[in-house]
């Protein structure tokens, strides 16, 4: 069945619509199609986190933190304390919030994969690891350096198979095994406290003239050193990850496919980019082109904003730079190893988890007050007819929240501004938020809810959002 016409191309030439009755009929027809479509899919049930596990992880992390702080020597104690406390704040932010996934099934699945790695790499067994999925949207995984490792939902939904996930885990385990984080902290704190640095700082502070320029050079030099060191660590972690992975039976080509994927990870992962003119277009409230009209960028020449980026610029803006170089360093070794399996633990669950994580991270975005990205994913799901009822409900809820926030002049805290680092279709949504007026948000949500009312019959929370939208409209 092809539903796309009935859903998104719902606007018809005026001449063809003679009576309100026809409109109602066509609306009923199109939404009935959607309704029929949605009956085939069960309503999404959110993951249920294991709060005891979360508490236990946090307790472990706290105990470790206390031990670390208590063990600090006198030397540069304040600096270490400042850094360790900042790091622990990040860890607490993850483990004490709804961001960390401790749903038994998802968590158990991740531990099973971890076990596949540690079983064949005994040197990793001794590590005290707290490995979790997180509901964060950005495509990344990280090791905090004190045992907490996380794989973001935003990365998981992009991975193709367990082999790629295994590489990600091996890479983060390698960072932890090699103690990169703590070594970097030590090295950088020592650099900041070195006689050479202190003498230079003292000398600059006494300068009456050109002090700013000299300070800039010194800061650039030292931060360049920090970053160079960080890139060296990435290469070393890749090397160790390969060593760990090749014993697991997983296909090491997953390293190359994963790095290739990371290279393009900022591109849209949906079948087609978000087309706002379609998802927000209704017979009696057509999409307004002025919402996304491009402004003349008079200063674009200053940064060649409209010109294609150079390869170097493009790479520097990526979430994961240097992927090509990283592949080149490992390619020969990988090709020398016999091909393994792409799935060992559970292919079906892996694919299910990817779908679930799209909803989970979208909902997390709402909780984290990142409304623009929350709506972006909801609209993409609506466009792709994935998790239809969830996406419709979330859009109605999001538009009501956008209205209330804009009314209180706080919308700027919930939506981002257009940026070169974002996908084109996301930038269009941001532009729309930038331009749409308060009363237009109210109108849009009313027509949106009305259009999907039949389909959403019985969906918890939708009626409440629709009533709210109607109330807002009459204010």
């Amino acid at each position, binding site marked *: 069945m092809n539903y796309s016409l009935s859903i998104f191309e719902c606007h018809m030439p005026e001449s063809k619509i003679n009576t309100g009755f026809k409109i109602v009929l066509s609306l009923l027809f199109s939404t009935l199609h959607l309704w029929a479509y949605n009956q085939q899919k069960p309503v999404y049930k959110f993951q249920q986190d294991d709060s005891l596990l979360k508490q236990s992880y946090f307790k472990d992390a706290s105990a470790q933190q206390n031990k670390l702080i208590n063990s600090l020597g006198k030397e540069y104690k304040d600096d270490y304390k400042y850094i360790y406390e900042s790091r622990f704040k*990040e860890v607490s932010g993850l483990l004490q919030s709804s961001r960390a996934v401790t749903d038994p099934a998802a968590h158990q699945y991740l531990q099973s994969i971890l076990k596949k790695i540690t079983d064949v790499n005994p040197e990793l067994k001794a590590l005290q690891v707290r490995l979790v999925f997180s509901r964060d949207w950005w495509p990344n995984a990280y090791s905090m350096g004190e045992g907490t490792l996380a794989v973001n939902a935003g990365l998981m939904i992009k991975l193709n198979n367990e082999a790629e996930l295994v590489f990600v885990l091996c890479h983060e385990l390698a960072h932890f095994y090699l103690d990169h984080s703590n070594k970097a902290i030590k090295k950088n704190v020592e650099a900041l406290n070195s006689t050479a640095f202190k003498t230079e700082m003292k000398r600059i502070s006494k300068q009456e003239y050109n002090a700013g320029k000299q300070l800039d050079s010194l800061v650039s030099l030292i931060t360049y050193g920090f970053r160079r060191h960080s890139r060296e660590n990435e290469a070393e972690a890749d090397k160790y990850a390969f060593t760990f992975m090749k014993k697991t039976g997983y296909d090491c080509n997953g390293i190359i496919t994963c790095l290739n994927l990371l290279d393009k990870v900022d591109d849209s992962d949906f079948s087609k980019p978000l087309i706002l003119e379609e998802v927000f277009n209704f017979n009696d409230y057509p999409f307004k082109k002025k919402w996304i009209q491009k402004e003349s960028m008079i200063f674009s*020449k200053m940064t060649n904003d409209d010109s294609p980026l150079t390869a170097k610029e493009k790479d520097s803006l990526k979430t994961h730079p240097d992927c090509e170089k990283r592949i080149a360093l490992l390619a020969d070794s990988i090709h020398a190893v016999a091909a393994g399996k792409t799935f060992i633990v559970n292919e079906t669950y892996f694919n299910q988890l990817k779908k679930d994580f799209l909803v989970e991270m979208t909902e997390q975005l709402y909780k984290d007050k990142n409304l623009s990205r929350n709506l972006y994913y909801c609209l993409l799901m609506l466009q792709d007819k994935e998790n239809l009822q969830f996406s419709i409900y979330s859009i109605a809820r999001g538009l009501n929240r956008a209205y209330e926030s*804009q009314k209180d002049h706080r919308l700027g805290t919930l939506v981002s501004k257009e940026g070169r680092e974002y996908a084109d279709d996301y930038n269009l949504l941001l532009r729309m938020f930038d331009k749409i007026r308060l009363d237009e948000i109210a109108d849009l949500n009313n027509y949106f809810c009305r259009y999907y009312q039949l389909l959403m019959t019985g969906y918890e929370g939708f009626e409440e959002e629709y009533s709210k939208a109607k109330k807002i409209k009459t204010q």
Partner: protein
Amino acid sequence: MRKLLLTVVIITITTVLYAQSYTFQNIRKTSHRSSDAIKEGTDVKGYYFFNVTDKIDKNTNEYTLSIFDNNLKLMKEIKFQDSKYISILESSFNGTDLIFLFYNSDAKTFEYQIYGADGKKKAYTYNRQLTKKEKRYLESTYLLVNDDENTYKGLYPIDGRGFISNMPSREDKDYTFQVDYFSTEKKKQWTFTPTEGGKRFSGDYLGYFNNVVYFEVLRFGGAFDQKPDSYIIGLDLETGKQLFEKPTDAKYRFYPASLSVLNDGKAFIYGEYFDLNDNIAKDKSKGFAFWGIDEKGKIMSEKYNSWDLELGKFLDVNSKGKITDFGYMFVHNMIQTSDGSIYAIGEGYKKVASALGIAATLLTRNSDISTIKVKVTDMMMIKFDKDFNVKEAKIYDKNSNNIELQSGYDFVSGPLIAKMIKYYYGGFDYSYTQNNKDLSSFTVCYSDYVRGKGYKGSTFNSISYNEGKITTDKINTKSDASRSWVLPAKLGQVLIIEYFKKDKQLEMHFEKLN
């Protein structure tokens, strides 16, 4: 610095940060003139911020001119070294080029630097050397900048071609004004300074239309002349040659405040009018007028709306023609919407007795403070049809504020004082008007001060027109910042700038208006 570097350590070992607003660090001093919106017409295209970033030697500083786009993305940082005595006075954008006016208080020079939209400085600059007399005169007028409230702006863009500058000037013993044109197409400049037939001249830029630059001029016969001649002059944009001089007496005596191109590309000047025998400098105005004018100074049409008759139908106007409590209206802007309606955006003002001035006069006899002061009252928006018939008028309440005047203004007329309030005292609350390209919406912005139960502090207010519907909104701008101010942003938004003196930080973020 130490914390900054430690933070860098944390960033390099863990996460990436994403920013939506912008913060300048290590800012020791700020002034309104060191930052402004860069506009193309009423459309905000970006912002500039001018800061001293280093001391090079005892006479030289390093300056950084940072240019941002209208999403607050840093587009260009222009660093240069110059005398420690320079300051930035104002900027303007003509759709293709930016002009920045710098003042060197030691060398007594103005320097106009021009940058293309690519951020590259043009090979030429325009300079003006001030005499000691001129410097003194400008210091009491245009350069009266050290209070941050001064809003005098004298640089006007000519689309894609150059800029007009209008500044007070002194020629020998005459007090006059100087008009300069600075081309951005090639190095070309002309200057016009009226000195003939009078001892004192005051000139206001009205606008530009079809290669002609229009000015309203008041010519005083002597230093103590209280009854000036009023006339409009047209200057050829190419040569600076005066094309016409048109007295503003017709059916009534007219005192235009501005020019707008309305009704399918026709030029109209508008402002208050008086009886023919009245004195523009002293008497009370009768109402509000529009003149259609062509490039030769020929008056094509006249329309007069009196305070008591035409406006009185819509507002409570008393017998003397004074709108009750509102006073007279100073029109800040005029805008024509896509349906042909014309909206005048004005603000009320009235002269009232100054207790401070009276007391000072009684006590010292030679007080510097006038016995009258100006009370700036509410905002008003008048809707006209395309023939300038009044269709609607509405007053938007705000708290009034009082402007104490220097002595000598006791017998000066309202419209003249209003211009002083506008250009020298920065006393009006009106900020700016913006419209979209298809003229289906516009927003009028002004500041206010609220003493309510829930909030006491300054607010930034708006009156918005969108497809025939008018809404109002206000943003509370009081915060923990040492100082905060508001700059225009894209239509329907404002940029709030906050300076935190203790942290030496200048923070900026957008807010949407409803």
